[in-house]
Structure formats: structure tokens, C-alpha cells
């Protein structure tokens, strides 16, 4: 394992002691949204940021994007200051809600964001075609976004976040407002992009999604990071063992109970596993489609857009799931010092 202090190329996000205090009109401190947050996201990781409403997740993300100035502390994203426009070309961002121009059509919306990335007309057309196909909106691409359902708007939001083939994807509640099919597609997409070497910062309330997808997780509350580590580190229960096998008749269970008793152990829980509601839902929808039932909403998405992760400037990197064992990583402040000068630092008593 490489020492973090010398692994600048592998680290896409570093926060060191980041604090954000919102002030009122008279510049008096009003809300301390984020306090002394330390984070480090390595290239190729899927990093989960968890926390209840108002815990500081979205504020942290907006500081990473340069939309907010930290009150104190230092941030480096892709090796530069968050406000540096050079890095924005490698970042894809899906906010917690899709803030779109309601009068633009789906295609015009993607075209607009393609222009912001300086894509020429041909590249824009090709990528938009692929993305519309990927998110299943090509049939409604000419309708104004204002007429879209919330889930469809999320899909177009997701498409815009990918139009530049980003190295770093920041997704704030990506499955919010989506039907289970769309949510499943997004989870598949995140996994696919991670496999192609993309770094993903995922902010979500859906703990199951985060557990399924993330290599590392930080749990925030009250603006602070309360726990940080890999899912295994955080979730493993050392005092219990779970075995799964085919259905057991009652006599066999009794034998197992007896065997465990001989080892001074008790069988605490015997139950039949249940399938998830998600899998049942997906099965029903697939069946309905196979029967040709009509729908006026978004279609099922297509394949992951071909350009994602395969352009010349994107270097696929193996997923960095092997973070240092034994709890939170040490924040690489040496890297920060070399990249970023301190922001206007201000200490306010909590």
C-alpha cells in the first residue's frame, strides 16, 4: 500500500479541516453547516457520503464544486482549487434536484450543457444521441423538460452530468424521485463507471444503495464526520456468523442446534430468507413489457454510452478499494499544501 503523502495522482478529493459558517445580512454567524470535515477520496473509488437532512452533505459537495467558499480549511479536487475552471471539465455533477430550464426540450438541455463543455456540434450530437438512448428518453427528447415527470427530469439530469465523460462524478441523491427501475439503472451505471476507473462521490439517504455500491463511506451528522471507513470495516459484526443453505427440514435444524450446543453456542435465529421488494417489482415490470403493455413515460434505458470512460483523455484505473485498514485514512495535508493556498481562514467559537 502506497503512503498517502506521496500518492497525489491517486487522490481526486481532499478536504482538510473544512468548515462552513453561513452568515446573516449583518455578517453574524447564523448556521455552522459543516465543521472540521476531513475527507479523502481516491481515484476509482465509489465514496458514499451519508447523513440525515441538514447534516452538511450537500454543503460539502457545493464547496467541492466551488459554489461555496469554505469559511476555513482547505480543499483540493483533482489536484486543484475547487474554483479552478480547468478541473470542471473532468467533473460531472448531478444535484439533489434537477435544476433545468423548463422551456428547453430534453435534447436542447443536453445541447446547452454540451456547449458549456466546449464540445463541437458533431461531438455534441453523437454524445446526446448515446445519452438519450442510455437514459431511455430518446422518444421524448423534443418535449419541453417542464412536461417531464420528476423521474424523467432526474434522467436528463443524469445524462447532463455524463456528457463530458467525467473522471469524477458527484451524485447528490441520484435516485431521488426515480422509480425502482430507474434507481436500479443508476446503481448499475455507477458500478459500471467505477469499473471503468471513474471516481464517484455518492450522496444518498438510501443506505442499501450506498452499501451495495460504495467502497468507502463517511457518515455525517451536525456538520461533522462521525464515522469513516470501508463498508466491511463499519458493518462487520464480529460476534455473529451467518450461514446460508438450501431449505432445512426441522430435524436437521434440531441437529444443528445440538451441534452448536456441544460447542457452547446457541442458534439464535432461524428463518427463510425473503426476496427484496425491488426484485419483485422489477420482475413484474419485465413481465408487463413482455406482454406489450403501453406506457407514456420514460422507456427503459439502453447500454452505457460508449464514450464514457473510453475517450483519449480518460485513463481507466483499477478500482481503489484497498484503502488502509483500521479506520479512517489520514488526510494528505502535504498534498494540499503543495496544491492549494489556504482560504480566508476564520475561526468561530462553536
Amino acid at each position, binding site marked *: 500500500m502506497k503512503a498517502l503523502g506521496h500518492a497525489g495522482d491517486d487522490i481526486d478529493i481532499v478536504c482538510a479541516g473544512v468548515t462552513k459558517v453561513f452568515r446573516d445580512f449583518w455578517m453574524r454567524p447564523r448556521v455552522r453547516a459543516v465543521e472540521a470535515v476531513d475527507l479523502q477520496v481516491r481515484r476509482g473509488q465509489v465514496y458514499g457520503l451519508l447523513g440525515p437532512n*441538514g447534516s452538511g452533505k450537500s454543503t460539502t459537495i457545493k464547496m467541492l*464544486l466551488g459554489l461555496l467558499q469554505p469559511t476555513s480549511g482547505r480543499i483540493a479536487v483533482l489536484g486543484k482549487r475547487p474554483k479552478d475552471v480547468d478541473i470542471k471539465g473532468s467533473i460531472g455533477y448531478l444535484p439533489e434536484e434537477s435544476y433545468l430550464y423548463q422551456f428547453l426540450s430534453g435534447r436542447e438541455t443536453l445541447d446547452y450543457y454540451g*456547449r458549456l463543455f466546449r464540445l463541437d456540434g458533431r461531438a455534441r450530437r453523437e454524445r446526446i444521441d448515446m445519452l438519450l438512448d442510455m437514459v431511455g428518453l430518446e422518444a421524448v427528447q423534443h418535449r419541453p423538460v417542464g412536461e417531464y415527470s420528476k423521474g424523467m427530469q432526474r434522467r436528463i439530469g443524469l445524462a447532463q452530468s455524463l456528457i463530458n465523460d467525467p473522471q469524477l462524478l458527484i451524485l447528490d441523491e441520484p435516485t431521488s424521485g426515480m422509480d425502482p427501475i430507474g434507481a436500479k439503472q443508476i446503481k448499475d451505471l455507477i458500478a459500471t463507471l467505477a469499473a471503468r476507473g471513474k471516481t464517484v462521490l455518492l450522496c444518498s439517504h438510501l443506505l442499501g444503495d450506498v452499501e451495495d455500491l460504495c467502497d468507502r463511506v463517511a457518515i455525517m451528522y451536525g456538520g461533522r464526520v462521525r464515522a469513516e471507513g470501508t463498508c466491511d470495516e463499519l458493518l462487520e459484526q464480529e460476534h455473529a456468523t451467518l450461514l446460508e443453505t438450501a431449505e432445512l427440514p426441522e430435524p436437521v435444524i434440531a441437529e444443528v442446534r445440538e451441534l452448536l450446543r456441544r460447542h457452547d453456542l446457541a442458534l439464535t435465529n432461524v428463518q427463510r430468507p425473503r426476496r*427484496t421488494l425491488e*426484485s419483485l417489482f422489477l420482475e413484474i415490470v419485465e413481465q408487463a413489457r413482455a406482454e406489450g403493455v403501453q406506457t407514456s413515460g420514460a422507456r427503459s434505458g439502453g447500454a452505457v454510452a460508449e464514450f464514457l470512460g473510453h475517450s483519449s483523455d480518460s485513463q481507466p484505473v483499477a478500482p481503489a478499494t484497498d484503502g488502509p485498514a483500521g479506520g479512517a485514512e489520514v488526510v494528505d495535508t502535504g498534498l494540499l499544501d503543495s496544491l492549494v493556498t489556504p482560504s480566508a481562514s476564520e475561526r468561530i467559537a462553536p
Partner: protein
Amino acid sequence: MTTDLPIAAARPQPLSAGPDPREIPSWFDDESPQGRRKRRLKRFARPLAVLGALGSAAALWYGGRPAPAITIVGIVSLALGVVCGVALLRRLLSAGHPVIGIARTIVEEAVGTRLSVLLVMLVVVALPTLPLVLDPGERLAYRLQFFLDWSLSGASALLALITIALSCSSVCGDIDSRRIHMALSKPLQRWEYLLGKWLGVVLLDLLLVSLVGIGVYAFAEALRRSPAADNADRRAVEEQVLTARASARPVHPRQQEFDKAIEAAITQIRNDDPALFDKDPAAAHRRIFAQHVFLWHTVSPDVVSSYLFTGLEAARLRTQVVQLRLQPFADNSSTSTAEVRFALWLNERPYPVKQGKHEEYVFAAGPVHTLELPASAIAEDGTLRVTIANRNMLMPGDPAPTSIGFNPGEGLELLYRVGSFEGNVLRGLLLMWAKLAMLAAAALAAASWLGLPVAMLASLMVFAVAVASGFLSAAFDIYTGVDGGNPTLTSMLRLRATLLLERVAKFEWWDAIKTIGSYAADAFLSLIPSFGDYDSITQVATGRLVSLAETAAGVCELGLAYPLLLLGIGWWLLERRDLVSSSS
């Protein structure tokens, strides 16, 4: 047994658990039947509306009512012009650059938001309707002047409102709805964002100003073809309205003597009351100068006054006639209908001479009169000396015949044609566009820091102050009792400081507060350019030349320098602004 898919181990493959979208059956429909019907109706509604309007116009035309027919055709043409112009703008703004992308989006926003569409429709309907409200019994020259003045002024005000509303609502809307988060998380500098907004608004303004120009020109041409009251009316239309005339103001024929007389008067005042003179020497100079010029422009019954116009070489060579524009007043007349009677000499020769007799002019005092003089009367060196002799009769009850006076400036000037009406309109429209470009930048700068209502109010205030700058400045000076016409900043500051100290020393607190108020008002006024300095609408409506130099200066100042400064301020504010507020 679970049927969960192994998500964590997903490989590049189709995203969906469902069928391949290419296998979606052909009967898949994205739109409800009502939506489809609405869309189809929309597709046919517009051409049908255009055909219906043109059909009504044809019916009115052949039914002997050409005026409303022309109005309907005008409305349809302008509306089609807007549609085609927007399509052209979309084509123009198709490049893959962020600034162009932002500009393109604000054009779409203008087309897609009700307020902008409503204001544009108001322009499209009001302009062709204006000729309908003109009194057909009025002289044609006056009708044309009224049409030009009101159509250009009205369009200018409406376009200013559109510019302010669109600029403010676009930026404030982006910030309030957080769309700006999406834009600024892309490789887009904040100055590029503001520049894109400005570019979109000014291109839209350029389109609308062009359409207004085409509409005004077309209706002015239609009015020109209307019957005139008489030959003088027709000549006034051609020579005083639909033209571009330069003006010359007179100098004193014996300028050195005139200057010496002024100097002598100043010396006398300085000797008589040195304290008063030293308090504000510049104001004393101006007062004495104005008195002498006024006396020079007053023709007493026993005096012959001469006025020398110079620099008329071009007029002599290129035109047949020059116009002497004069607005006489009778200084001791108690009624506005009093007449003035005078005789005229041009370069020492009597004019006009008919049948060997030097004829006199008799005009009503008060209104403006225009005399057409032969350009051949101008001397080879380009000078024309106009001499006026008072021939007023002694009226019963008056001690002496009435003096004839002219207000220095526009009360007595010489005008001559130097360009075409078309060129004048074009330059006037360019200046109108430059003012809109300045307003757009001011509105964007305000919106980059303030919320929508406050930004709109601030922008409207800038517009109002820019329009009424001269008047406001004079009003503040009168209110506070401070002469603001000092030639230098230091003398003005010195005078105001002295006045303030005097008032404080005398415990005249209210006057002192008024003086401080005048400082603040003047400081604010000095930050905002005066649109009155480039009053192209009045110039076009009165057939006065909007010169190329004036146009270039206006476009540079209002269309480039101020917008750059204001956008710079807007960028500075936006750069320091947190675009997210706390939700707690």
C-alpha cells in the same frame, strides 16, 4: 432464494434489466392523444392566423379603408420578422462555446417566458397602430414628426423594459432556482456566464431595434405618400423632417469687441463687490456672459443686430437652400399671440427683395419659424452674416415698440441638409441599441448581487436617472441652492465645502442637510451616463443630423465602455457571492 442481481460485480453491459430499447414495439407512443391533438392544432393555428389577418387586410383595403389594412399588414410583418429573427439568432448562436451557449439560452428564455413575449407583442402591435391615432386634419409634417417621435420614444421605453426584465429575471431566476449551480459546476467562468447573458440580451435587442427601425421607416414612407396640406407642408416634410440637417449657431460679427465688453463687465463687478465675486468667480463669469449673449440676441427697436454663421462651405456647394430657424419672442408683450415684424439682410444685402422692394417678415411671437434662404447668399469663405432690424410698430399703450428676442441656442440657428433620412434613422437606432446595451449590463450587474424585485427597481432607477440626468442635476442644484455648473471638479468641491461650512456656522441645519444631499445626488448622477447627451430620437424626429462622430462616441461609451465596467462590477460581486444559502 434471492433473485437480486449482483450489482457490485456489474460489468459494462446494457443498463436495464428490461428489454433493449431498440426492441420497443412500434406502437410505443410518447404522447397522449390530447397532447398530440394540441400539437397538431398549434402547427396549423399560426399559418391560419397569418392568412386570416392578411385576408382581413385585403378586405379592408378593397373596402376603401387602407389605413387599418396597412396596420394589420404591419403587425403581421413585424411578428413574422420576430419569428424569423429569432430563428436567425439561433443559427448564429450555434457554436460550441460556453458564452455562446449561455447567450443562446437567454434567447430561448425570452421566447419562452410570458413577460418578454408580452412586451415584444406590445411593440409589434403598438408601432403599426400609432399612425391610426394621428389626426388626418393635421399638417403632414407635424404628423410625421409626431409619429417619429412617439414611435421611437415608445419603442425605446418598451425595449428598455424588456431588456431590464429579461436580464434581471434570467440571472435572478438562475440563482433562485439553482440552475446556476449546474452551469457553474461546468468549465464556465463567472465572467463568461455574465458575458453570455449580456451577449444574448444585446443580440435580441439588436434584432428588436432593427425591426423597430424597419417598421418606423416603412410607416414613415407610407405617411410621406399621404397628401400634404399645401406646398409648404410638402416642402417641410422633405426639407425639415425626412432629412438630416446640420446646424450652425451664430458668433458675434465683432467677436473681439464682444469679448472685451464682457471682460470689462466682469472687472466692474469684481471691483464693485469683490467678496461676492470671489465666492464663486466661475458663476460670475457665466452670469455676465449669459447676460451679454442675451442682449446680443435681443433686437431693440432702435438697434440692428448681426449674427455671423461660419463654416458653411459645404452648404454653399451642395445645397440650394439653407434654413434659418428662429423662435422670436416679444419681450414686453403681454399676450402670446403678439406679432413681431422685422427686416433681414444676408451678407449686407436686403432679403427678400420682390419687385425692387425690401420686404419685411411678420411672424407670431412664440412658435418656431423656418425661413428658407438661398445657399448662393453664402460668401465664398463659407460665412453668412444675418442682420435683423426691428420694424415693430408702436402699439397703443406701449411706451415704445416691442423688442424682438431669440433664445440663444435653438432660438436662432441655421440648418442645412447634409445627409439622408435613412442614414439618420440607422445612426439613431445604433444609439438606441447602445443605450439598451448599457441598461442590460446595469441590470445584470444588479441581478448578480440583488434579488429580483430589488434588482429590477435598481435597474429602472438607473434607466430613469440616465433619461432625466440633466433635468435631475439642475433640479438638485435649484433645491439645494448650489450652482452645479462649475467648470472644474476642484472649484465645485471648494464652493460646496464653503457653502456647507457657512450654513453650519449659521446653524442653518436644514440647508446644510440639503447641501450634503446635493453632494450625494451629484455623486450618484455622475456615475450614470446621461442619455440626453445622445438624444437621437429627437434629432431623427426633427430632421437633425445624428452625426457619425456622435454615433461612434455613443456606441463606444454606452455600448462598450459602460457595459464592460458594469459587467466587471457584476463579475466582482458574483465571484464573491455564495450561491447557496443555508437551509437551516
